[in-house]
């Protein structure tokens, strides 16, 4: 047992995993994960390259290294900013303790739920609020919109690092953490916030949609019949302010939800509607 195998030489990188190795892995993951994204195995190659510093430390022989690399070349896909750093951190912890196979099942178990949570937080809850705010600044000619968007992107990048270290500390315990109810509460609160914002921003962003229709009305003043021009828009405002923006959004929503139209078709219908209303001199 003490006799070293002559044919298998011990790899020079073999040794304990250091904090520097973990940091290197985290940077690789957080900067490059999706650069080689492809239809077949999606984020797999990025994942393998990111975790390589850990694999190289833990593989004693070339054979072990090849085997551990092959384990990571399997299909992997989740939200790269909210979710993947946590999974990756936990997976690094498993590899460090040479529990690679357990790490693999953790990856498979968590990538689905994390894709759902991450995409919901980013795409449905936070991006719309930030994007609408930024867009309304930009439309009013202010640089603030650009900087809000820039800061938003920097935030997503920055927060991957605490995510990674949290995942690393949790290790296997991660599965139980995710099953807890804290995320549901956060999601509900953010959904409500999103709806208030959308409710306010639909009329604000689309306030340029006004009708130019005028009526000529004959009125009798002091016994003399005169023509008076009445504009339609102020009358609509009396009834319900920003009625046209609400109707157009309602129309698009109805097409998507009840008529099951694709966004591309709705885009086409809205363009036709705009051209028709413009040519008919209604708007």
């Amino acid at each position, binding site marked *: 047992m003490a006799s070293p195998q002559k044919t298998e030489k011990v790899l020079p990188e073999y040794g304990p995993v250091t904090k520097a190795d973990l940091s290197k892995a985290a940077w690789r993951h957080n900067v490059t994960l999706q650069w080689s*994204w492809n239809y077949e195995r999606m984020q797999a190659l990025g994942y393998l*390259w990111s975790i390589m510093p850990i694999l190289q430390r833990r593989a004693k022989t070339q054979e072990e290294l090849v085997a551990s690399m092959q384990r990571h070349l399997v299909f992997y896909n989740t939200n790269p900013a909210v979710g993947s750093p946590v999974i990756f951190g936990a997976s690094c912890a498993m590899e460090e303790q040479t529990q690679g196979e357990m790490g693999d099942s953790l990856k498979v178990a968590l990538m689905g739920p994390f*894709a759902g949570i991450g995409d919901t937080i980013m795409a449905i809850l936070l991006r719309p609020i930030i994007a609408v705010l930024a867009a309304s600044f930009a439309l009013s000619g202010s640089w603030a919109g650009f900087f809000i968007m820039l800061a938003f992107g920097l935030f*997503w990048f920055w927060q991957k690092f605490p995510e990674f270290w949290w995942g690393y500390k949790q290790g296997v315990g991660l599965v139980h953490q995710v099953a807890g109810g804290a995320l549901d509460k956060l999601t509900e609160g953010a959904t409500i916030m999103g*709806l208030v914002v959308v409710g306010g921003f639909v009329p604000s962003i689309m306030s340029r949609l006004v009708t130019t229709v005028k009526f000529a009305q004959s009125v009798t003043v002091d016994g003399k019949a005169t023509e008076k021009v009445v504009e339609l828009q102020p009358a609509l405002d009396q009834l319900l302010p920003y009625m046209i923006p609400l109707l157009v959004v309602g129309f698009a929503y109805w097409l998507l939800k009840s008529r099951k139209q694709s966004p591309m078709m*709705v885009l086409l219908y809205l363009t036709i509607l*705009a051209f028709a209303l413009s040519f008919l001199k209604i708007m």
Partner: protein
Amino acid sequence: MSYGIGMALVLAILAYVCILANLGPSLMWHESIIVGTITGLIVGDVQMGFTIGATLTLMSLGMWTYGGATIPDFMTGAILGTAFGALPGVGLEGGLAVAVPAALLMTQLDVLGRATTTLFIHGADKAVARGDVKAVTRWHLWGHLPWGLTRAVPVFLAIWLGAEPVTKFIEWMPDAFMKAMRLTGAMLPALGFALLLTMMPVKKYWPFAVIGYVLFAYLKMPMVGIALMAAAVGFLYINVKGVANRG
């Protein structure tokens, strides 16, 4: 007026860098407001970048690459729309008339890029079998070539060769068309809002949308005020609900 080959190259590099900054570090530089503003700075019309970028951002509100799905490429749309819109005689309406179709057409190239990168993981398979760590590194780090080139090449060609035909086409278009295009631009955010609403539990929480509407339409509250109010309402709701459940 048209752009030279140098400008075409600069904007092509911008497209390449922005798609990579989104793919890898999630910096969101592919967002139309960011890329539109930078394009505006480069071509000397920042306001055009603001407006094209904001309009495309609002259109894309509910759009997200769920599980790697392809969505319209508003990044390329924003670069082309801003660059062409900044040309004399084209303007905002002309810029939008370029940006939206470009974003839709680019979906074909997105699919091509995502498919081509498959070659890189097959290369990596072979490298791993040999235990060649350096080759694995190369396959991964160059995996962005198909991604970047499918954006950069169309931008380069369109800016280099497209400015004159686009300008001529827009000048030839009747005024009524340009007026209709302006109205289309004002109407397109409806798609973004509607798409977003389909993904939210509107039936359950619709009163919150009404609160937002009343704040703006009747109380004339500025947008930052509405966002703060929204955060407060969301926070209160979960807490009050938590108390109610315990009681």
